């Protein structure tokens, strides 16, 4: 069973998304801020991380940078998730931040449940 770590400060979103991914046969681990997320990556060694960008303590970009700088952890695919203005995110983020953080995919919130599942499946099958 593949393990997915979802890091998002929105507890409601985490809860609902966990139900969704559970139903698709994933083991879902939750974390509610950047620091906790980073700790859980190290402790749980998930197969994939879904990272919200705007979070307290440590934001998603920073968490991603740390992950991708780690020789062991950088193999874990990361999907960035953000509610920032969609077009802004796509054009500015993917070129500037995307290169720096080397995230494997990004999704603009609000995300269609089917779309999220598809992206997760795609990344895990690539691995």
């Amino acid at each position, binding site marked *: 069973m593949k393990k997915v770590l979802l890091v998002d400060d*929105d507890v*409601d*979103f985490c*809860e*609902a*998304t966990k*139900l*969704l991914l*559970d*139903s698709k046969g994933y083991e879902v681990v939750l974390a509610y801020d950047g620091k906790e997320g980073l700790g859980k990556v190290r402790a749980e060694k998930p197969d994939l991380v879904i990272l919200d960008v*705007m979070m307290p303590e440590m934001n998603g970009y920073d968490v991603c940078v740390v992950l991708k700088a780690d020789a062991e952890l950088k193999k874990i695919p990361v999907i960035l998730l953000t*509610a*920032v*203005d*969609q*077009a*802004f995110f*796509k*054009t*500015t983020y993917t*070129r500037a931040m995307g290169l720096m953080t080397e995230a494997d995919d990004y999704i603009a*919130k*609000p*995300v*269609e*449940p*089917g*779309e999220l599942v598809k992206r997760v499946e795609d990344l895990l099958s690539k691995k």
Partner: protein
Amino acid sequence: MLIQPSINILVVENDITILQRCRELLLDEGHKVRTAECIEEALDIVQKQPGDVDIMLLSLELPGWAHMTLIETLQKARREILIMTMSANCGEEAIEAMQAGAYDCIQKTFMADRFRIKINRAIEAFRLRRQLDLLTRQRQAEFTRVRQDANLYAILQSFSDALVVTDWQTNIVLFNPAAAGLFDLTEETALGHPVSVFIKSDELLSFFIRAIKSDSSLAMLMADEEPVVKVGNKNLRVHVFSVKNEGGTVIGAVALFHDVTKVSAMDKLRDDFLSMVSHELKAPLSSLLMQISVILDGLAGDLSPKQTDLLGKAKEKTKGMITLVNDILDYRRIQEGKSIQKIESLDLAKILQRTVELMRLSAEEKGIKMTCEVAEGLPSFNGDRGGLEVIFINLISNAIKYTQQGGHVSVSLNKAGKDIRFKVVDTGIGIPPEDIDRVFEKFYRIKTDETRSISGSGLGLSIVKGIVEAHNSTIFMESPPGQGTTFIVSLPVEE
């Protein structure tokens, strides 16, 4: 034929023989002639009866005077007098005299024909010069009238926007206190002086020149552009118009400077605010969408048919709100001319196929068949990736939205002449003929029984139109009654 007034010529020459010869020749031509044998005498005449001298015929061989100084002095004090010099050989000194302001030089050989030709040309030049002066004075007088109209003047003075009026030679003729403060103008230093002395920006100067040189339509065009210029630490929105008299002749230009420094700061504040609102709205909406979806999928327990029905409607409303938030943000960006963020070489086929994959899910949910045909080997297109995605998403999602269950949406990308042609055809409810002209208007939504249950902001198509135009492209649509709707976007490929 126009009868020209006779010309007054003052001959200044110490050689009496030559003086007499000149006098005879000029009298023969019908001119009024006065003579002076030395500079002092000539200056006396010019100063006492300034209007009595039109042309001065000045010998360059008078003793005791620096001619160049004399010519320069005369030019400054009595600009209306045209100075012709005479000398034995018209050498270096004649050239210097012309550089100092003299019109021409006559050789003192006095071959009658040559003398006449030179004098006549000088007279011609004198008349032209006088006409020009007259015209300038007339045009300036029209501004003087404005200054003398107390009410009008008071209005201009109390304007909070800076206002500068120039004549047709871009000399300042009028300004208000706001402009005085902005450009450091005073009545003494500025009036009658070129605007370029005070307004150092070449861009600003070009507006004045264009307003004066152009016809009104061009001036209007400039006003549409509303350029913002930085002066000191202020951002100024500039409007420059040509000023015309009753006869339609351009007599000058008027420039209005509106301080938008604070507005620019407000723009930034508004952007920050909207980004914040965007985030604060989208975060809960995404939770809501996820929660409703998992309940609908039965992941939180079994649902009764009634519950499924109600939650399905709640999900549609939530999606409608998400689209609205995105549309408002997109629309703001397009209004600000930011729809093209970065031009790059794009593989449209790839972008479209990806978009179609994203949309396929919502088409299938609605029981609509979606097909996508992409021609092989399409050239790359130079455009903004985000913008093109929005065009594809909005047109395809519209087609899905307005097509009933069991319908068909077909999307295609082809080469048509020099263009890449993107086409979306649906078998949907179509657009009533009376609404076709208005579908691209912002916030316009077609209101019929069939559309009542469909949510939307009415911004989607106006956003598409904005992006299409920003790419120098065209959008075309047709919707014959009962046959669905077709949208075609033609994207020109650069050679």
